[in-house]
């Protein structure tokens, strides 16, 4: 119990009656005040003072995350639950497809060698599945940015008829009836109640932990052991900064914008961002993807039309098509595309490969439980 004595005179008199000298009294007051502060401080700090290992860590060279971590900070139990859900085909209508089907760790959680992803009943969609990495730094999701909150992302593939074709309501019901999940929800959220928000938050917790920030490039930037770049790679980085970083900006290698990069318009006629905004000026614009682990995330572009990084650079160097929404950075000085010699392309690719983060691609924390 801490008693604050506001009126010093009153206190002096009161203690004087008890025959105590003022100097002692003052000392006593200071001492008590100090004790109170210490006690209060301890009390206050207690709830936070469970130094559970930091499940989510921001690499030193990354900007502040966009995701509201205060709302749903990953914990060990939450991450375990999210991981179990991520690998569980129960999330699909017939129990055949898990998230991990199209988001494979070895390929930075994308669908390796599939231009567009294969879902339930061997149906195919129209877009290339995006890598799941560094989600805390993304402000919008999917190639058209139709989803503005990571927590709302999982409903999309679950309910898409050509992906998992299940109703999220059914997923929640199935989880409630399962043997293992009630206990896992209790570990993660305090009670064994299974509901939509918790389900979505658990998946977010797992996805948030998928941070790739330990590539050779990162180590070079942070001047850490193993952070060496060859001459070609360094030249490649200089070229990249001059020719590519207008869109693939910053440490995430994307400015999170939507741009039309001059791809020839395929018969699918995917309008991209305009499907969401319904604005003419957004036609054929797609999210500028991060280039982290780009060596492993083939094929490339929203429809997976390029099977190699070389093909991508050849597109920018030689095949950019004019469309009404073509990005201005791709039509400088009256020329379409980005000028690159064969040697420059090779050096840029050499640099891009330094963004491969083997530690992330092999991290056992992300493996199927």
């Amino acid at each position, binding site marked *: 119990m801490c008693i604050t004595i506001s009126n010093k005179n009153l206190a002096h008199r009161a203690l004087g009656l008890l025959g105590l000298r003022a100097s002692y009294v003052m000392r006593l007051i200071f001492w008590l005040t100090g004790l109170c502060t210490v006690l209060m401080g301890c009390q206050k700090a207690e709830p936070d003072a469970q130094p559970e290992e930091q499940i989510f860590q921001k690499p030193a060279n990354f900007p502040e995350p966009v995701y509201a971590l205060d709302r749903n900070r990953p914990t060990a139990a939450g991450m375990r639950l999210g991981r179990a859900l991520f690998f569980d085909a129960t999330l699909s209508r017939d129990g055949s497809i898990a998230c991990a089907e199209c988001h494979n760790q070895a390929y930075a959680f994308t669908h390796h060698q599939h231009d567009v992803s294969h879902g339930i009943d061997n149906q195919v969609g129209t877009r290339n599945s995006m890598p799941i990495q560094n989600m805390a730094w993304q402000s919008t999701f999917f190639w058209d940015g139709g989803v503005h909150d990571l927590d709302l992302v999982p409903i999309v593939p679950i309910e898409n008829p050509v992906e998992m074709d299940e109703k*999220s309501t059914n997923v929640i019901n199935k989880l409630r009836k399962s043997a293992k999940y009630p206990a896992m929800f209790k570990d993660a959220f305090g009670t064994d109640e299974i509901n939509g*928000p918790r389900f979505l938050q658990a998946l977010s917790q797992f996805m948030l932990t998928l941070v790739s920030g330990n590539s050779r490039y990162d180590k070079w930037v942070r001047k850490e052991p193993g952070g060496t770049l060859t001459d070609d790679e360094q030249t490649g980085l200089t070229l990249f900064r001059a020719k590519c970083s207008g869109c693939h900006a910053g440490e995430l290698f994307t400015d999170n914008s939507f741009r039309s990069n001059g791809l020839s318009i395929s018969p699918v006629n995917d309008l991209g961002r305009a499907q969401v905004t*319904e604005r003419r000026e957004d036609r054929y614009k797609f999210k500028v993807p991060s280039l982290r682990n780009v060596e492993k995330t083939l094929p490339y572009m929203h429809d997976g039309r390029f099977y190699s990084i070389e093909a991508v650079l050849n597109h920018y160097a030689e095949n950019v098509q004019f469309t009404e929404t073509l990005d201005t950075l791709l039509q400088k000085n009256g020329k379409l595309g980005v000028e690159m010699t064969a040697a420059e392309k090779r050096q840029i690719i050499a640099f891009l490969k330094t963004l491969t983060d083997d530690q992330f691609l092999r991290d056992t924390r992300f493996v199927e439980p």
Partner: protein
Amino acid sequence: MITNSVVRIFLLALVTSATFVSCKKTEEDVIDPDTKNSVTVEFENRVGDQKLILGTTPYKNASGESFSLTALNYFVSNISLKNENGTVQKFPNQYFLVKQTDAKSKLITLKDVPSGNYTEMSFMIGVDSLKSVSPVTERTGVLDPTSYGDDGMYWSWNSGYIFLKIEGTSVAVPKTVNANQNFAIHVGGYGGGWNGSAKTVNNLRTITVPLTTKATVRANIAPEVHLFVDALKIFDGPNKLSLATTNSVHSPAVATPVAENYKTMFQVDHVHNNKQ
């Protein structure tokens, strides 16, 4: 004499009682704003001058197209009641999903309404932009995007709620569009602009209806406002919509004429002010 005095006493008694009655009446008219009661709003869905029955009941729109309905759902939110003094009583953070298949959902109860004579009611059809971008933990009950089962009220690929949906069948729907000639008109679009992203079409509409019979909330009166909701107006409002062309609406821009139409479909039929 005796008869005369009896008459006099009788008359006196009559006057006295009349005075008492009138006194009591004046007492009643004093509105004590500290007392509260609930107001119930009933949404009675109809099709023109017919009862709305889901299934095969045939209806006809102004374009002469015969149709039947299989679903009519809409969100009601941001309800407010305007007092005769001009004071507006708001009911924030209360969201209701009216479904034709669920009789209970058609009765909305507003709790703790201060006593007063209310002359106007406003409400929004849809889920306001603030709630549309709120964290999942704040989307409970009818706003839980994982709660709709087969009766979806949420666009997952373009995050946002479906404010109103009407579905059914019509011979006017070309078989090339839908082999079973089903139509599905889903209206959403809260305006976008979240996380600095582009603005999208805003189809949130606020409806204001006068309460010609005042809703007189008292400690012992919980009024019931009975609304007629004419689904035919969805096709035959300010915009004449034909099912031959408007039969598959699943994004905000094309849904705007529909929202403009349903804005006109609500009217107060009567208000009950029964004493409890």
